[in-house]
Structure formats: C-alpha cells, structure tokens
C-alpha cells in the first residue's frame, strides 16, 4: 500500500521535511519510488514570478533534451530559469537519467490575448505534445507537469534516498504545498507515469488503496475524448481526472467531488436537504463511482488542499496542524514528523462522509460532511 504525506504552510518549506515524514511511515510500503508535487514555489537562486509556467520532467537522453529545447522554442516559449538539481547520479537506481528538468518559461507573447481557459488548455496540450513526443521516441522524454507554480518529480527508489540524490535536502527549492507518495506502481511494470501524484491542469491528487472500478471509470473518461484524459498506467490516475472533471468541466464546487466518487446511499439521499439533486448527480456520474478502499489527497491551483476517504478504508488518514500550517498523512506518525508541535487532540481522522478542505489561508480546516447542505445555490 502506498504511503501519502501532504504538508501545506504559509511559509515555504523544504520538500525534504515531507520526505522525512515518508521515512517515518516506512513500515508497510516497499519504498519502490517517489512522487513529489510542489506548489507555491520559491527558489534560492531565482526570483520566480508565479504566473510563469514550470515544466517538470526527465530527459533520458541528450537528444531528447535537444528536441525539448527546439519544441519549446518553436512554440514561442522563452526560458527564464533552468533549475539545476545537485544530482548524485550514483544514488539513482535507474541508469538512463540524462537530466531532471525543472524549467520556468515565459508564455508566448500572443497568449497575452488568450482567455484564461484557452491558456489552461494550451498549457495542457503542450505537456501532452511533449509526452507524446517522448513516447514516440522509446520513452526518452518524460513530462510530469507544465503549469504555473507547480513542480513535479518522480523517480524509482527509496523516497529519502531519491531526495538526497536530487539534493532536495539543500533547501534550494521550497514550496508552500508539498505532496509526496512513496511507491512506484508495482502492480504492473515500472512506469514513471504510473507514479502518483497525478496532475492535470493545476489539479493534483494522490491515492492509496486499490480502485477496483478502474476499468469502467477509465472507459467512461476515455469516452469523453477530452485530450487530457489519457494515460491510466495506474488505477489511481482516474481520481485526478474525476476531480478535474467535477471542478473544471462541470463547474461544481469541491464538495461535489465526494458526492461523485462515493455518493450516499439512496435511503440517505432521500433524507438529504438536496436529495433530489444529489440523486440525479449520482445517476449521471454513476460511472465515476470509485470502489476502494481509497484515501485521496489533492491540491488545487489556489493552494486549497483536500483529503477524502471511502467507506472501506479501514485505517483512516490523519490531518493535524495549527493555523498557517497543516499536514495530512496516511499514517499518524507521518503527521507527527511533519508538524510535531501541534495539539494532537485536535487531529482529525475523516470518516466516509467527510471532505477535509484546507483553504488557501490555512487558518483552519473545514470538515465538510456529505450529509450537510450542499453549497451549490442551484441545488437549493
């Protein structure tokens, strides 16, 4: 089972703190890999304008890197910053890592006239085009994200070891949100794209557990023919895409996510203040119902963080913290490692009906229950 850790704080912190939490939770996972998502970036050697998109990935050969450079140049992107990791290649298990790139670009000047939605779409299509380019060249180019203020790293190996190999302990990168997941997808062959967190248009999620409804959900998402709904090397990728679908495509508030992936039972909805709407929503989104046990952690572009679980999750995840700083982890010891000086009595373990939302101001967490009134005015 994967181990998950997420920390969000007003003051940027090193991702290594979260990796230490992964180490604290080492019992129970195989440490086969690391996936990191950083949001709210701060670089020691560069003053970053958070509007500029950041491209994260791995060039496995020099050729691939050249192709990447040409591609971005042709598209009109201007390279503003190229973060050089202090890589100790001897500590990396895989032998074909030419360059871990984390680059800040200035978007092409014609984009200034584009709507926000169009820019978001173009950013996604750029990432997908690069991914496709890598896939067409024997996987020599892996691209994890291309989005303002977001960086991602995925690698095979023990999380702390990967962190040290990439020099993450040197505090050269900090972020206000950090998500970490400590397992490569060992159910199938190792594939960097199968490693959580998954990312689409600013939305990132990671999951532990097994989603047995994966194939029907994948079939449905694929059937929408939305360009970003591809991949599915892992059964957990659908969680990110469903969240994207609910928020971006349907325009529903975050609270609707839980009603889509784990809707209430009919008899519960019949007593719900918006039962009629929610029953309808459950029916129309029926193919997106997950089948866990699953715990999902995620972040949104405005630095909101969320945590949800389904009814079958036997050992709940924990969230704890204090105003300005919150941590959630699949094991309580992970929270202890990230924020030791908190009031543990206020820790919360969500149950099947809860969505935990940490708003961008991080002053207090919101525990929202599916039995509560739904915040969408249309449902009233």
């Amino acid at each position: 089972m994967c181990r998950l850790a997420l920390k969000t704080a007003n003051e940027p912190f090193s991702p290594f703190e979260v990796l230490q939490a992964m180490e604290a939770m080492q019992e129970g996972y195989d440490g086969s890999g690391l996936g990191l998502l950083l949001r709210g970036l701060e670089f020691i050697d560069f003053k970053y304008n958070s509007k500029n998109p950041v491209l994260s990935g791995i060039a496995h050969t020099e050729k691939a890197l050249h192709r990447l450079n040409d591609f971005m140049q042709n598209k009109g992107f201007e390279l503003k910053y190229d973060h050089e990791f202090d890589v100790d290649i001897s500590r990396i298990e895989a032998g074909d890592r030419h360059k871990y790139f984390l680059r800040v670009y200035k978007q092409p000047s014609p984009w200034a006239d584009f709507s926000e939605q169009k820019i978001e779409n173009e950013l996604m299509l750029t990432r997908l085009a690069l991914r496709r380019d890598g896939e067409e060249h024997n996987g020599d180019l892996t691209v994890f994200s291309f989005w303002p203020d977001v960086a991602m790293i995925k690698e095979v190996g023990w999380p702390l070891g990967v962190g040290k190999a990439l020099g993450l302990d040197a505090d050269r990168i900090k972020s206000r949100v950090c998500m970490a997941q400590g397992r490569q997808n060992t159910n199938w062959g190792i594939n960097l794209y199968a490693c959580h967190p998954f990312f689409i248009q600013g939305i990132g999620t990671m999951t532990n557990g097994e989603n047995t409804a994966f194939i029907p959900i994948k079939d449905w998402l694929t059937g929408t023919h939305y360009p970003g709904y591809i991949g599915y090397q892992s059964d957990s990728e659908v969680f990110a895409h469903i969240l994207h679908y609910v928020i971006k495509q349907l325009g529903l508030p975050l609270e609707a996510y839980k009603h889509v992936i784990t809707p209430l039972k009919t008899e519960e909805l019949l007593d719900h203040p918006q039962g009629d709407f929610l029953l309808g929503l459950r029916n129309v989104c029926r193919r997106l119902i997950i089948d866990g046990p699953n715990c999902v952690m995620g972040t949104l572009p405005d630095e909101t963080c969320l945590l949800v679980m389904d009814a079958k999750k036997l050992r709940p995840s924990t969230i704890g913290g204090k105003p300005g700083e919150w941590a959630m982890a699949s094991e309580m010891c992970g929270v202890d490692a990230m924020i030791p000086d908190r009031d543990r009595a206020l820790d919360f373990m969500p149950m099947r009906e809860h969505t935990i939302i940490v708003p961008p101001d991080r002053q207090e967490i919101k525990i929202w229950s599916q039995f509560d009134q739904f915040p969408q005015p249309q449902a009233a």
Partner: protein
Amino acid sequence: MVSIRSIPSTPSSLTPNDLPWIIKHNEERCTLCGRCTSVCPVGAIKLSYMRKRMPRIVLNSSERGSSYKTFVGIRQRTDPAHRCVGCGSCSMVCPNEAITPTPNSNDDRYRFQSAQKGEPVKRGGRRNVPGASLLDRIIFNRISMLTDPALDAGRHEFQLNTLLGRVLPPEEFLRRKLAGEWIPPVREIFPFIIGSMSFGALSPNMWLGLLQGVAYCNEVLGIPVVMATGEGGCPPWVLKSPFLKYIILQIASGYFGWDEIIRAIPDMQCEPAAIEIKYGQGAKPGDGGLLMWFKVSKLIARLRGVPEGVDLPSPPVHQTLYSIEESVMKMIQSLSMAWDFKVPVYPKISGSTSAKAVLNNLVRNPYAAGLLIDGVDGGTGAAYNVSMDAMGHPIASNVRECYLDLCAQGKQNEIPIFAAGGVGKNGNITQNALALIMLGASGVHMGKYIMQAAAGCLGSERNRCNVCNIGLCPKGITSQNPKLYRRLDPDQVAQRVADTFMAIRTEMKKIMAPLGRSQSLPIGMSDAIGIEDKDVAERLQIQYIC
C-alpha cells in the same frame, strides 16, 4: 412371410423406441390406481385391457388346447400426437415408483414425423441445445488481494442495484436542473428482472404468485425487484393497485391488453416501473407473439378484447413500422406522453447483428430509456420449433459489441443495455448475469429461469415437456385450465420467488466481494472476467485464461 396389409404399418408408425421419451413401466409394482394416465398432459399412456394366450398341452381331446388370460396394464401411445414429452408427471404421482419416462438413447425417429397435417412443430421452451452455455464458461478471475484485503460478503454493505431509464450526460443534467427542465425518469431496481411473460401465457396462479413474491421482495426484503408483463396486459385490479410500480408493462405488435391499460390510467395509484415496447424476441426473432387458442379463456379473452378460443398471433412487426427510426420515435414518445414523461420507455429487440443500428438510433432519441436485447437462448410460451432452434444471435457478443460501441461514444451511462436469453439456463443464474453485467449489461431479464426456480417448470433443452403452448402445463404454470393451474399454490410460488432473490443477492455479494466491488454494480468491469477460449476472448475483448 405375411402380406403387407396384415401389418399395421404407415409412414408415421412408430414404436416406443422411436420416440424421444420411452415410458418404463414396472407392471409388478403397478397398483393400477390410474393416476399416471389421468395426469399425463398429452395422453401418452393408457390403461388398457389386454389379452394373452395361455398355451397348454392337452392330452384329452375334449378340451381346447389353449386358454386366454385378460390383464390390465399401462401402454405407451406411439402416434406422434400422443408421444411422451418426458415431463415425468406420471412418475411424480405414482404411489409405487412403478413408472417413469426415460430419454431415448437410440435414434429419435419422431422428429421426421412431427409435422402432421402440414403443420410444423410448435412448442414452448428454449432453443434445444443442452450443455454448458458460453456464459457458464466465463469465470471471474480478478481477485482483489494485491493491495487490499478482499471484502467480506457477509459483513460489508453492497450497492447491488442498477438504473433503468435514460440518464443524461452530466453537463446536460446540470443545465436542465438549473433551467428547471425535464429530467428523464430513472428507476433504481434490482438488476435481475423477471422477464416478460404474459398474463395469458402464464396461469392466473403463477402470475399472482410472482406478483406476491415481487411485492414481498420490495416491501419486506428491500430488494427492488420488478417484473415485466408480456404482451396481453395486466388484470385491472393490478393496474389500479400500488403494486403497479413493480411492473413493467409491455406493448407489442398485437397491442393486446392495452384497451384495459389505457382505460385504467386515470385510476392508477402509481406509475408502472417502465414500459417495454417489444419489437423482437430472442426465442422467435422476426415473429410476433403467439397465444394459441387452447389458452384463450374467458378471462384472457376479456383482458385482450378478443373472442374466446381463437389463436392470437401478433403480427411480426408493429403497424407503425415504416422505419425503425420512425417507429421507435413515435412509440416511445406516445407512451412517454401517456404517463406525463414520468415512466421510462424502452424497446426490446431480439439479438441480431443489426442490434447496434437500433442502439445508435436510440442514442439519438432523447426519450429512449434503454435497450433490452433478447438473445437466441431466450424462452417463449409458443413458437415454431424452427424459429426457436435456428433463429437469433447469442447474447454475450451482442451485448458486448453494443456496450463497446457506447463506450466509444462515451454514452455507456446514458442508455442502459439489458440482456436476456438463456440467463441461468443451467441454473447458474448469478454467474451468468454478472458475466453479462461485466460485459456491459446493466441488468438481465430472466423468464424461464424464474419459472423453473419459482414454480418447478419441468421444461429443458432436451425438449422435455415444452408444451407450454397447448395449455396443458403439468405444473399449472402456463395453463388457463383451472384443473391444471389449481395445482400451483400462489403462496408457494411467492415463497420461492423470495427464496430465489435472496439467494441471488447473496451470490452477487459472493462474486463481487472477492473482486473488491461493493460501491456500485460492476457494469463493464471487463478486467474481472476471463474465458478458456482464445477466439471468444478475442471477440469479447476479455482475458484468455488457461
């Protein structure tokens, strides 16, 4: 050698050994009670006096050499009209286990003589192909033990229900909800539906027993079972009762029973579960319904608005069928309108290579609530043998290709596909149904299985019994003769319906739990099934296992 004329031989002369079923009668055990002969639905046996010669050697010439003895015994009739159908009623009533029909392991020569008076064989039942069906061979092999412990079928909660009705795309649902527009009706039902068997095909006691059982499942057991009427309407008291919500009313090309239904609409306490428009039937594709005159009793005649004792063959197609598009659109809209667009209306077709064309037509019809496809192994109360045995399309590949077609369009949640035709043919009802569900069906209809499970129907694919068409059902299931249907106690049928659905519910959990599924019905979970046949696996796009 004797002359030809002195031997009673005609082209249709048969001996018991030429018939599909041979009566074994043990005269030593027979008490001559006569129950077997009186119960036999086709008069295949007769109690008769026979005489045999008792030769004696006589030395005294004043006495005759031989005497004769008279005795009473059971004999099997061999003329085609009275052939034994193998139902075994004689065996059931015999107090002394003296009689039983046995299948003929020799050549059956009856089949060459079955067409008498120019009329080919008509019968009830299914396609006579015994043995394991394709559905029986599909197994569930994605056992969820990789990252999490399997579910506990006995302790976890399971969501087993399915949806019947047109489901909007999520974006359209939200738009209409905001605009206050019409949202198509959707029913949450148990995915095992009692398939359409008409009031007319079934006896009143059978029908009542089924309805009682269905009501018990819904109201006491919490299993939302629905049952479909065939063509032929519904008794008026049911139409005006709160039980109507458990009933799918069928309209077919004869429109039998619809006068009563339309007249009852103002008095209905609730809406029916759905309306099924029958365009075709798996047992006899391209052929209309058939209620033979034997079964058109006074009650049935009244319900259907016809004279008593006449054959009621429905036309093969609806009169409105100028084109499928027009027909489907007109009928679905008219029937939706009859209930204020509050009742799902869906067509039933026979399995066919053209099923996808119908489906794609429905996709573009905003009122179509689903599609029921009835495969080649579907049963019927009466049809020509050739239609049953040789016409149709197997259900598995038909459902699968339709589902995949919907997937490619992203419409698989919008039009539920229901599957029928041979589900539970060999008793594996839950396994068969869940295999179909994982291939893409939203649920199954079962007719023959429920007759077998709930009322002890004797019919089989070895052509046992299968005389539903002539109203002589030895169990009283498909007869309109009170002497026969009083054999069937509706309370006991209801009990068996409840037993059956409770068992199905448990078996569903026993299949879903190891697969790690409990939150929703695993429709289209094709990664969970496999078959030991490469060609089938390839065709169905499931795993080949060996």
